[in-house]
């Protein structure tokens, strides 16, 4: 069957099997490989994209169900890699990613969360991202990134529970700095 889906602002269309998942449409038909698939049970959220502005798990939707819709993937957020979308940029600044596999879905879920709740609390971020699993970061820096992307200071929300490690009183080894500068 034929589907027509606007992806990252461009119209796309293809003849697809009715059972083709949106995630595979994006990856295999369009070659947009940022969207990852991490599970079979809609549990991990690595495949999260925006559909008509709301975050959805693209492994749980058929391409056919999205016919006529507008999809945004990670590639669509920051078409120029040198100029990152503010949420993606906050993930970098706060080290909210390690292996990168959950990251495209996590960033898209965060974009969706912030569009619904522009100034979330730490708890709201944690519950808002409950459908996206990360195995590397322990979420601490992801939460910091989302708080920072919302324009709040991650060192100050929630009584400072998200603060970075204290370097107070730490003696630098020879040749090492302990400052925050780079």
């Amino acid at each position, binding site marked *: 069957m034929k589907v027509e889906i606007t992806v990252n602002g461009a119209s796309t269309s293809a003849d697809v099997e009715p059972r083709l998942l949106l995630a595979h449409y994006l990856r295999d038909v369009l070659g947009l490989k940022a969207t990852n698939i991490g599970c079979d049970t809609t549990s991990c959220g690595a495949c999260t994209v925006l559909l008509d502005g709301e975050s959805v798990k693209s492994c749980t939707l058929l391409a056919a169900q999205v016919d006529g819709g507008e999809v945004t993937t990670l590639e669509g957020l920051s078409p120029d890699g040198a100029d*990152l979308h503010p949420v993606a940029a906050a993930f970098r600044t706060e080290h909210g990613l390690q292996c990168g596999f959950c990251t495209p879905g996590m960033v898209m879920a965060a974009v969706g969360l912030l569009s619904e709740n522009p100034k979330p609390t730490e708890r709201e971020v944690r519950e808002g*991202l409950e459908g996206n699993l990360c195995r590397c970061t322990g979420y601490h820096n992801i939460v910091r990134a989302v708080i920072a992307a919302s324009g709040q200071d991650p060192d100050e929300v929630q009584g400072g529970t998200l603060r970075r490690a204290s370097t107070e009183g730490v003696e630098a080894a020879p040749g090492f700095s302990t400052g925050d500068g780079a």
Partner: protein
Amino acid sequence: MSIMGTRVVRVEDPAFLSRGARYTDDLDLVGALHLTLVRSPLAHARIEAIDVGEARSAPGVVGVFTGADVDLAPALLFGGANDKMVRQFLAKDVVRFVGEPVAAVLTEEAYQGQDAADLVEVDYDPLPVVIDLKAAATDEVLLFPEAGTNTSNGFDHEKDLDPNLFDGCEVVVTRELVNQRLAASPLETRAAAAEWGEDGRVTLWCSTQNAQDTRSEVAGWLGIDAAQLRVITPDVGGGFGAKIGADPEFALVVWLAKQVGRPVRWTETRSENMTGMVQGRAQLQTVTIGGDRDGTVRAYRLDVLQDAGAYPRLGAVLPMFTRMMAPAVYDIERVESRARVLVTNTTSVAAYRGAGRPEATAAIERAMDLFAAEIGMDPAEVRRRNLLKPDQFPLTTKGGAPYDSGEYEKALDKVLDAVGYADLRAEQAARRERGDTMQIGIGVSVFVEITGGGAFKESAAVEVHPDGTVTVLTGTSPHGQGHATAWAMLASEHLDIPVEKITVKHGDTDLIPRGSGTMGSRSLQTGGVAVYQAAGELVEVAKQRAADLLEANVDDLVVERGAVVVRGTDTAVSLADLAEREKLRVDTRFDSGAPTFPFGAHVAVALVDVESGKAVIDKIVTIDDAGPVLNPLLAEGQRHGGIAQGIAQALLEEVVYDEDGNPVTATFADYGIPSAAELPSFTLLDMATPTHLNPLGVKGIGEAGTIGATPAAQSAVIDALAHLGVRHIDMPLTPLRVWEAIEGAK
């Protein structure tokens, strides 16, 4: 100012955050066939017949292979295991765990693979199943009758225990502890792809933590010369120890590509990953601790049964580390341990973050709490009285570990102070007095671990190019750790060239033939130091050349902003210009000669609803001292991830098989990986005690969080219930288990 010790944001991130990383499944491989594996639905069975006729004629099918077609010798997956316990690449007579591959289907399209795999008919004759370790030890049901035993190997396992070990102790406590089986669960599942060239060489792309070892393993299994095989690791979506080395499936992919003369690619599903990938921990421990009522611990015994799964792999060696680290941070007169490794009808056990050390720490930290409860002393105080003192270092422990440096009491004091230990105990007493539904518990752990304990040597090369850019080649193999940034910092420190101009390459055996990859928290203290050393040596080479060119004395030359400068003058030649005249590259190797022993202390605070049994970790304060920190941003990330996995083992995660060997946690819907909502934020304190074993003074940080957090979180929940008479609950401390413990204590 030195770049070392600063928060340099990652150079790999702009690509990861715009177009996404490039994993094995993302590769464009023109004409590649998709491999779908037919896996055993039974834990132990004889294969009577396999009918692939219908599958062969299904749409898109290019080939269907069974064990009868595979001309490879069965492989012993771990050298130290019983040599009868070998695995076939496709099982042809007996299957020994649910998920063992029995047939391979190659199709043009991925979706066609599952359709065709469903048409493969396998006739199984079920055999008795053994899952329980004590049952396995009886040898009543044997996985390998030809071996005559389920014991793969052991460590003093046939030695009698010392009947006098606890002589003279006023108090002796003994207890069986389960260190449950866990699934590493990297978000990227296993994946591999292979393509043979016309020159008779083959390229294997795969998701692994060490390309070079993968090459020798796969070449060995296939019976080909390692020089014929090029292994490339694209970006790797997490490993946590479970991607150390090659999986048999990787060799199968290479073999199949040869059979059909086309590239073959394989990416497993999550449920295949949860049944077929190696898993971790899986120890049944008996601890016995003895000492005096003044808090002095005099003797400690650790007796381990290690589950190896059906085909022994790295799991067979985990107890070696568990035994080595058994006495941990404590100065105990008499210590003994032994371990037996057993096969069961489950997927193989191998490394998972900490790999043998979290098991040692969990055992003795629980033992310390049990001893403290028995003598009625505060658990933090009992620990303090038995800690090794700073002036005892360096020393070799009764476990045989050569500890380099440590300040354990200082670490304990700092976390207790930061968490407000005395105030928390007062609040706990008040809640108990009031009979609150929500009780609090405080769990303390002091830990030491071993990093870089496997391979001490690592290679590095640094080359400056005529355009002023730099390439660093490393034998380490990052999969989230940020080596592209960290190693660039180390080169930048010597060359004074910005990290943005430095490219770090890894994971390609043609480019980097020697390397041991990333595991056991070894990378910085071996591979990072090698990069630092290579860049330093390159500076010396450049100075020699510049001295001739500038007619200057080498001693008057310094490197500034990527140039060799005659100190105090404008006379200079850039490293790029030197590279233009003659290739400017240094290859080197660093040999640490010994492992290092990072340490720390964690305090966790649990909130436990004593009516429902629901427990959460509300707060955790940690010191993870791995010496000087190269990049705090990256080091904190490692600590965070480790702490999360530690809390997850304590409260949430467990791989469960039923008595017939059916995995009941085979999806992410069933297995308890925590989300952001189930974890607190983490309070990290810093301490930096250097080691003398490398010029940077650095130790490993990758696994510390897991090792310290697991017992702290477990003990915190149990501590919340101490006044009800609860002394121990096995992990994971699910609401049901906590509720049952409360009811049982009534």
